[in-house]
């Protein structure tokens, strides 16, 4: 009887230890996501930059856009104003929390749009331009370690917690050294690869990092891709009025 009790106690102990170890592992990977969010979000300052987007489409040729980006991550706000091409000058995307409005200066009308949509014929999504919220939106369902090019990386499989996010499944390649995301594969609900994103260059702004080059590859249309380069970065305070519909209308007058 004593023997059985001993075996049972040992089994319970092993099970409890295994479970604790597993949750500790899970916690570590979630921590990595939190670190990524923290490293790339500007919660104590505002952020502004100029982005150049070059899209190459095998059917439609090359398209280039220059946009001015304003971000206030602590309030989940951003404004993107298109500066080039001239025909699109003044078109604006204003995000306030979960709402995103598009402004057409020609008709002077706002229309509600979705963060999941592509940004103006590019392969970037509207959601790519806000703060990173991986830890809030995804759980880690798988992990491994490996190499991407010459970098030692963690490879994490993520599953969305809600259907509010752009992609239900993602695979991330993250540098072991400083938790910078190098590559992301975005999948549909049926696990079909929809898009691959590359982040080959980062800019260090104080203690924060922001990708200075992003490449988005459309995996559904062969040869279609967009490169986004970021310059003229500033973290100076922006006036509150920038993140309003009224400003978007006034700047177009």
């Amino acid at each position, binding site marked *: 009887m004593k023997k059985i009790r001993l075996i049972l106690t040992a089994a319970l102990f092993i099970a409890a230890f295994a479970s604790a170890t597993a949750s500790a592992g899970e916690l570590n990977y979630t921590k990595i996501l939190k670190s990524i969010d923290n490293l790339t979000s500007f919660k104590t300052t505002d952020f502004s930059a100029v982005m150049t987007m*070059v899209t190459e489409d*095998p*059917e*439609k*040729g*090359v*398209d*280039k856009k220059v946009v001015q980006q304003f971000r206030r991550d602590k309030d989940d706000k951003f404004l993107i*104003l298109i*500066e080039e*091409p*001239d*025909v699109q000058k*003044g*078109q604006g995307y204003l995000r306030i929390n*979960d*709402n995103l409005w*598009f402004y*057409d200066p*020609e*008709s002077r*009308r706002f*229309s*509600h*749009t*979705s963060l999941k949509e592509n940004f*103006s*014929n590019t392969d970037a999504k509207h959601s790519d331009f806000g703060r990173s919220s991986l830890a809030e939106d995804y759980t880690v369902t798988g992990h491994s370690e490996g190499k*991407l*090019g*010459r*970098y*030692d990386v963690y490879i994490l499989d993520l599953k969305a917690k809600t259907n509010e996010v752009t992609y239900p499944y993602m695979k991330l390649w993250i*540098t072991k050294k*400083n938790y910078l995301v*190098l*590559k992301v594969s975005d999948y549909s609900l049926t696990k079909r690869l929809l898009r691959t994103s590359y982040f*080959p*260059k*980062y*800019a*260090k*702004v*104080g203690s924060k*990092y922001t990708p200075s*080059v992003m*490449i988005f*590859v459309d995996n559904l249309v062969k040869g*279609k*891709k967009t*490169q986004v380069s970021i310059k003229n*970065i*500033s*973290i*100076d305070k*922006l*006036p509150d*009025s920038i993140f309003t519909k009224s400003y978007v209308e*006034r*700047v177009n007058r």
Partner: protein
Amino acid sequence: MVLFKIALRNLREHKSKTLIIGIIVGLGIMILLIGNSMMDTATKGLAKTYWNNFTGHIMISGSTKGDLTLFGPQSMNSMNESIPKIPDYFKVKDYVSSLPGVEAVSPQAFGMSTIRTEGDDSESSTTFTQLFGIDPELYRKMFPDNLEITEGSFIPEGEEGLMLSEHVKEALEEDLGRKLKPGDQVLLTSMNDLSGMKIREVSIRGIFRFKYSNPALDRISLIDMQNLRVLNGMTVTAAKDIKLSKNEETMLNNVDDNSLFGGGAAGEAGSASGSDTGLVETATVQKKKYTESVLLNILGDKKVREKLSKTDSGAWHFLLIKLNNPARARRVIREINTYFKNNNINARAVDWLSGAGMIAQMSSNIKTIFNVIVLIIAIVAIIIMMNTIVISVTERIPEIGTMRAIGAQKSFIRRMIIVETLMVSVIFGIIGIALGGLVLLFLYLKGIPATNIFFQILFGGKVLHPVMSVQSLVLSLVVTATIGILASLYPVSVALKIQPVQAMQRT
């Protein structure tokens, strides 16, 4: 004559086998005749429905790599292709209008947009509509009777507005939780290659449904062309040629793990594994003071935008042509395409079916599928007949052997078997045709109701009254004779192998 007498006697002697073969032939021919006559009537009905309601007889468009329909590119290899404008539209329209036998022309364009009302901020309530951009006057002249307007009225000549599809209206009302009526304003938002996302506020002029609709047409709303040109970015100025910097080109041309992260040209990486060199650069953070004046002048000169946004009044995707005599369509298409070639106009003319879209093409393909089924039935019938005749021939080995022994040539035996089979095929084929004719007469008088919208499109109306077509009749007769000849080939070879000595042994 002797041959016929012998053949008749043989058929009489083997009544049950003759009957089996006859029933197979008769039934086959009857099904073929009824089916083909129904398909012919339906195909003519389908064509007539599309001619009079959606496509006219001929469609002109700019040239594309893949197939183009009134609903845009629909084949998998051309899904990403844009619909081109018809080059030299006014010249093309004048030429086509001057052709003899052209009854009407109507230009058209295709677009897609989301539809909302001002202040509707719900992200989940996205209603889509497909748009046919039209010239209201020419559209009504070409298709005077294709719409049922349930509320409001048609877009007046020379004015702007939206004719909202009844199906789209119902979906939108469900999203909004309120009713829509003519006079209400809606926001149409669409994306185009040239000017990106565009919004137009448009007034609903009327609510309509197509008299003959299908799931592809249910989502179509009609809009004046000025608004669609803005939504589609059909402007006077074409997109500029973009020159990329060397760095941009290098990055875009080498998008793979090793080029970007393995120390290649784009990576500019250092050598140590895991090093940050090349991956992270310290940014030169700019000091910026956003005063009111800086903020309001951030876009610079905006006048050029207005100039570039000017729409092209000659921009259309399609020109639909209605002829006095549809039978001339092929000749007119050839004539127009020759004109395009001689004048270096990068456009093409195609028949109505090419422009009609997948559902119409699918309906048309059903006839082909039916003919394949008939072919399979015919092959089965030939095999059964062949088998039955072979049994009959085997039973008559002594008789055939004796005939050979008393001097009958191989050719005589061959002709005898062929005549036997042909007689069965022709007699029962005629019976099959007669029965098929009676069934068709009955169906013509009674009519076959189209139980759903798909059959309405397929039948070209709510009831199909099948008519026996000359084509089907000729085809039935040809098939009868062919079956007869093919079915007798193998039995003939069996019969010819019979030697007189075998006959003696069996006797």
